[in-house]
């Protein structure tokens, strides 16, 4: 069965492009353009992974993630953050899984789709392993 990914971003263009990119990789994509809808959809659709834009009007990505942790149906869903604010430092090699900050996975924009997909795969494998244990 295809893995379901919920992508949340207030920019329609981002949703279109990212959605298409991930669909091409074989994922089932559901979209939300604000935090409120994201929570509703996450609870009802139970995606396998959520990609959250950090900077959004209303509820920002961080807030959404916090709330997701508080809902039993969504607390275990892995999250990837997308942000345009993280400065790239030359010395830093771009990690394959993106930056990890305080246990969260963060991707800078513009993202490399291959790296993003790798990260998604890794997180989903982790999740499945935990479930199987």
């Amino acid at each position, binding site marked *: 069965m295809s893995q379901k990914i919920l992508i949340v971003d207030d920019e329609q*263009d981002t949703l*279109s*492009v990212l959605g*298409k990119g991930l669909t091409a990789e074989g994922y089932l994509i559901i979209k939300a353009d604000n935090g409120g809808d994201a929570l509703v959809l996450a609870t009802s659709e139970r995606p396998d992974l959520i990609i959250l834009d950090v*900077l959004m*009007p209303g509820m*920002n990505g961080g807030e959404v993630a916090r709330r997701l942790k508080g809902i039993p149906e969504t607390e275990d869903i892995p999250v990837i953050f997308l942000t345009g604010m993280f400065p790239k430092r030359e010395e830093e090699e771009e990690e394959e899984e993106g930056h990890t900050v305080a246990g969260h996975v963060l991707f800078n924009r513009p993202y490399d789709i291959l790296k993003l997909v790798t990260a998604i795969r890794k997180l989903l494998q982790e999740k499945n392993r935990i479930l199987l244990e």
Partner: protein
Amino acid sequence: MLSGLDDEGTGLLAIENGATDYLIKDQSLDKILIRTVLYALARKKETENWWRTFDAISDLVFIQDKDFTITKANKAFAEALNSKPQDIIGKKCYEVLHNTSTPWPGCPYQKTHADLKSHTEEINDPLINIPLLVTTSPILDDNGNLIGGVHIAKDVTEQKKAEKLILDTNLQLRETSQKLLNAKQELEKKNKALEKAHKELETRVEERTAELSKANELLKKEIAERKQMESYLRASEANLRKVIVGNPDGIVIVDKNGIVRFVNPAAESLFGREDKELLGETFGFPMVLDETTEVETIHKTKGIVIVEMRMVEIDWEGEISYLASLHNITERKEAEEKMKKAMEIKSEFISMASHELRTPLTAIKEGVRLVIQEQTGKLNDEQKEFLGIVKRNVERLARLINDILDFQKLESGKMDVDMQKNDVNEIVKEIKETMTPLSSEKGLNLIIELDDSIPIIKFDKDKITQVLTNIVNNAIKFTEQGSVTISTTKGDNDNIIQVSVSDTGPGIKNEDLPKLFNEFEQLAGGNERKTGGSGLGLAISRKIIKKHNATIWAESEPGKGTTFHFVLPIKERRRKPRD
């Protein structure tokens, strides 16, 4: 006396009457006769002796009987009257003495005669012409009856003289005494006066002393106060000195002739010279009071030093002098230079970078256009969809790059406006065409209301388009439902055209209205809103409008909507030299 009477009584009578002896005849006569002759001789001698004694008395003596007849007078008395005793005896005393026929009133014998006592009187008899002290003494018989008197007159001339002398002397004495008394009284008076004067003086001295004492006290107080003030002053001065000496800015005090009188340590280091080198030298800088001026000076070792100087007039050691405070701004100036250079470099870089950015952007834009316009072949819907996304975002990028360039121009102050004759209404129509897709996407109506009577005016077409685009873009962005209306009218006065853009969005709070046109100001800022802009749009718009000598502003009613207005002048005003 011889008598045959042998009678004692008769014999006594005879003796009494002066008989020496009383002889009775038949007695042994010879013996008795001898005895009697002896007695008679003895008695005669006695009597003679007695009268000799009587005449020997130097005082004037006479004896008078009770009828004032002189019975005996002594030699002295007779001589005094220049007569002989025989002539006097038998006469009345007052006849002899006073030549009167009656007793003299002051006669003491009269008194003696009366009271049978001795009396003494002082008599000045003209006949005798000598002052006499007369004493009359009574001669009494055995029964105490007066039988006569003794009148003794003493020549008291000498006494009188003595008396007079005594009197005179007494008088003199008394006079002298009186004079002395007077003098004493005078002296006492003078003494009293002196005492009084003395007391007065004392009182005055006391008063004076009290006054002086008070004055002294006051003076002491004043001195104490002054001393305290002096010490305060000195403390103040000391503090002032500390301030001056410790001040990081240089302080130089110059007298009215422009000679340096004082420099503080900071000034020394400013000039790189010690105060003894600087004192007495001419200050050399223009002395402008109460203004801040910039001066250049040469430090002994560090070269040119730039100083911000401020001069004020002060009272220094009693003379009009000038205090200059020198603030070293060399570093600041250098920093300013550096910053200017940095700004220039940055400007250049931004210019270059944005131009560099535009090149690939153009390629992308053109490439996408060619494909969208199906000049490379037919497109399916999905292809059209994604290419649309690309095109849109390329335009967004382009706008951002323009914003950055504009920002750089804003910073550097350079912005040229190309004033050409244009039609405002045309611009509005063009914008409507460009922005309708955007508004339709959001389900908003984009309405235009144009006043056809507005004239053709001079303005920079591209820039005004930019302004209007920015405003309309914002209107659409911030409005969720309703419409955005662009209108043109003739303004309140004859010389302007007004363009307004109103929306039915949430509106803007009154207190936020002034911030709208600030650089980088985005309402409801912070993490929440990602507005897809640089925050410069309105700031740049304002600058553009200013360059047209016009104004731009906004009005809003929270809950109802917002309207942005800008006006453009019909007649070009002469450009002001400053923006």
